[in-house]
């Protein structure tokens, strides 16, 4: 039955508990649990940071170079891998220039808000292999909520920089995020209707069932297969949400220089840039979790994290592909697509899903009655 039964693909034990058990910290009551939680958060946080901050920029260069028919970093270290070290030294060594008229607390906080909001989102993502920090019942709502905080950071950055380009960028960011967050959440709702829960682990578990068997090959009930329409819609809205081509309008380098981040330099720039990458990967993580079966994949369950990362990187690859191939739409066209197109489609999808799920459940109930 849809959304009902559970096939525990992964351990239901969350990472903090496991660390508590392993280290014996669990014996020390509340304080021990708290420490275990910090350790777990530290591990997950660093895993994500290593992926986005270290592998991300390197891979981005390699991928873009492949798309644009040229070489990328290949001098510093094997395959140019050590370029990240060189970059870190370079970026952190730069002077931190703060504009004279900058609105100080907001200007300083914005990069932290942008980067931090994305980090928070990873807390509820089940990454497989037992890496799952927390599993609240409102998991999906939580992810959307914290990812939405980033918009606040962008507005803060845009407003407080005392630069007209930043201001335009900040305003664009708000207009864009409002126009796309609603279709995004509404499309996410259709998954919730299928799964019957907001809890991330349950959503993943619901996708573990077999949808159809083709030639002895089990196609799992990933929601991307069950409802491809919602999947595409969600993907598109996600690109706008994370501000990537063809919707990289808040930054729009050729139009408004660098948008909200125009005045940021040195460490602050790194933080904002990191925040953007984290958002791309968080977007990938959400898509992987609610549409691509989370950590599910062939092989033993211990490989979950590998499959999960593969899915995230697939989404990342797609963003880079679009970036290389598609023109940017204009801000008014974007708003039009968002409000007149995506929103309508998202609600249509929601209603359709509700009807189909309703019919299926009635069918199932009926058949059960008959067989009984």
């Amino acid at each position, binding site marked *: 039955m849809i959304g009902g039964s559970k096939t525990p693909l992964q351990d239901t034990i969350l990472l903090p508990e496991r660390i508590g058990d392993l280290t014996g910290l669990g014996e020390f009551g509340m304080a021990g649990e708290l420490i275990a939680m910090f350790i777990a958060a530290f591990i997950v946080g660093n895993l994500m940071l290593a992926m986005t901050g270290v592998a991300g920029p390197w891979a981005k260069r390699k991928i873009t170079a492949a*798309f*644009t*028919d*040229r070489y990328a970093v290949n001098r510093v270290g094997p395959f140019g891998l050590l370029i990240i070290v060189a970059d870190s030294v370079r970026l952190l060594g730069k002077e931190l220039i703060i504009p004279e008229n900058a609105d100080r607390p907001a200007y300083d906080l914005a990069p932290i808000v942008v980067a931090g909001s994305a980090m928070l989102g990873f807390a509820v993502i089940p990454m497989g292999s037992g890496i799952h920090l927390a599993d609240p019942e409102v998991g999906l709502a939580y992810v959307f909520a914290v990812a939405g905080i980033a918009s606040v950071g962008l507005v803060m950055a845009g407003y407080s920089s005392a630069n*007209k*380009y930043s201001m*335009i960028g900040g305003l664009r960011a708000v207009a864009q995020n409002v126009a796309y967050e609603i279709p995004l959440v509404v499309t996410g709702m259709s998954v919730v209707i299928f799964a019957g829960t907001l809890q991330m682990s349950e959503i993943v578990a619901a996708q573990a069932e077999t949808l159809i068997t083709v030639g002895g090959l089990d196609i799992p009930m990933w929601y991307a297969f069950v409802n491809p329409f919602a999947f595409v819609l969600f993907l598109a809205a996600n690109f706008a949400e994370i501000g990537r*081509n*063809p919707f*990289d309008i808040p930054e*729009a*380098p*050729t*139009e*408004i*220089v660098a948008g909200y981040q125009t005045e940021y330099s040195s460490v602050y720039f790194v933080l904002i840039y990191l925040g953007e990458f984290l958002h791309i990967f968080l977007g990938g993580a959400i898509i992987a979790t609610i549409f691509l079966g989370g950590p599910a994949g062939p092989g033993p369950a211990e490989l979950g994290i590998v499959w999960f990362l593969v899915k995230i990187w697939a989404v990342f690859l797609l963003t880079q592909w679009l*970036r*290389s*191939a*598609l*023109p*940017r*739409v*204009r*801000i*008014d*066209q974007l708003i039009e697509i968002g409000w007149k197109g995506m929103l309508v489609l998202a609600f249509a999808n929601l209603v359709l899903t509700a009807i189909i799920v309703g019919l299926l459940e009635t069918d199932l109930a009926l058949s059960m009655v008959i067989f009984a």
Partner: protein
Amino acid sequence: MSTEPELDADVAEMSFEDRLEALVGTRVLERDDHKNAPGFVIRPDDVQDVLFDLRDEAGFDHLSCVTAQQYDDRYESIYHLKQYDDPTREVSVVVPTSTDNPVSQTAEPVFRSADWAERENFDLVGIDYEGHPDPRRILLPETWQGHPLSQDYNQEKPQVVTLSEHANPLQADHKDTETDTMFLNIGPHHPATHGVLHVKTVLDGETVVDVDPDIGYLHRCEEQMCEQGTYRHQIMPYPDRWDYVSAGLLNEWAYARAVEDLADIEVPEYAQVIRTMGAELCRIAAHMLALGTFALDVFGDFTAVFQYAFRDREVVQDILEDLTGQRLMFNYFRLGGVAWDLPEPREEFFEKTRDFLDDLPHKVSEYEDLIVTNEIFQIRCVDTGILEPEVAKSYGATGPTARGSGIDMDLRRDDPYGYYENLDWDVITEDGMDNYSRVLVRMGEVEESAKIIEQCVDLLEDWPEDDREIQSNVPRTLKPEADTETYRAVEAAKGELGIYLRSDGTDKPGRFKIRSPCFHNLSTLAEMTEGEYIPDLIASLGSLDIVLGEVDR
């Protein structure tokens, strides 16, 4: 230059010239004929009157260039008029003014292109145009002392132009409490200005209300430098530095054509074919760059299209390097021919060129997939940056910018030079008047240029070995007859690149005036973008394909 058709044209023009003189009538003080056109000297307060008559009665709808110069006893403005339908129909209106009080009536109400042209003349030579709506300097800062091309200008005097003395682009008083508009400086350092251009923009939200391009950041006194060089050798390197993005040979041809006309220099046919081939290679390279940077502006990043365009341009650059020995500053043309013959072994050069031409259709279809048929690209470019043909003509727009608005004018066909008239090719025009049309025109022109190059390669391959004359016999020291004047233009990558030359009997030009196509094309920007969005402003600027080196000279 083949002389026969020229003579025919002259004969046909006779009656036309007489009719013109009758039209201007008693307002003609005397005749001051130039080599390229009849010249009528008129009073400074008759300018608008005469120009209106010439425009409305005789069809001279193209104010190609406005030259200003100072003689010992007078200042002089020359309005070089042409017709878009037939650019060989030319007339010069010469307006002398006294040295003490150089005031002349403005032509701005007749031709919008006079706006910027007269500002430049005021700036550099010092003629005041009475009734000009915007009599500011244009190339030099507002605080500049004196007019550099006037005779009493003191070059030794240092010019102090501090930021505080100059109009401060950062000043806060752009705030207008009455309206909700915002003043925004786009440039001089901005990713999309293609050089150092400063566009003063007034925004209402995202909508562009007012646009005022501020140029001159790259002004290098090119005209004056050319006036200080000798005709024979010292001037030719300069044209490479006007439109410096690989259009060098096209620019060199403008200078070569003007001097060859001024001093009646013959060019051997073989050299003309090489020139034609080289120039078209340059055009492909320049259009590739235009395409790539336009894609950069619309796509918003250094994306595939930009890199592909540069990859393909690279092949052209290699061929040009083989031909001229240089990649950017070719200095390959000579008066009366070219510097040297094709590189040996010739077969290798021909093969390389043919390989490039064979690959081109495939590459063009790649661009079509990536750009032209892309729906997002279309919604961004179709019906944005509209330039009506009448407006384009009034502003003196030429080249792909004009042809994108359906103006069927190409000097290669309409005012033939080189070897173009013997070759089979078409002029590309589009009626869309928008950014999209201008892209289509450039892409079409790349294919037409390829056709021309192919025919040139065929000709050169079969050229008899004992007839490969690359330069005619030109005296080492060239001293054209004093007070000969001419204005000659060629179809450069961006449009009509013209040069006005006046000889003063020495081996250096008395006046060297450059008519830059980018300069006039850029002046249409405000017409194209007001009322549209910022991204359209950027796209329109990109579609004009300006090179600031040529705008500012």
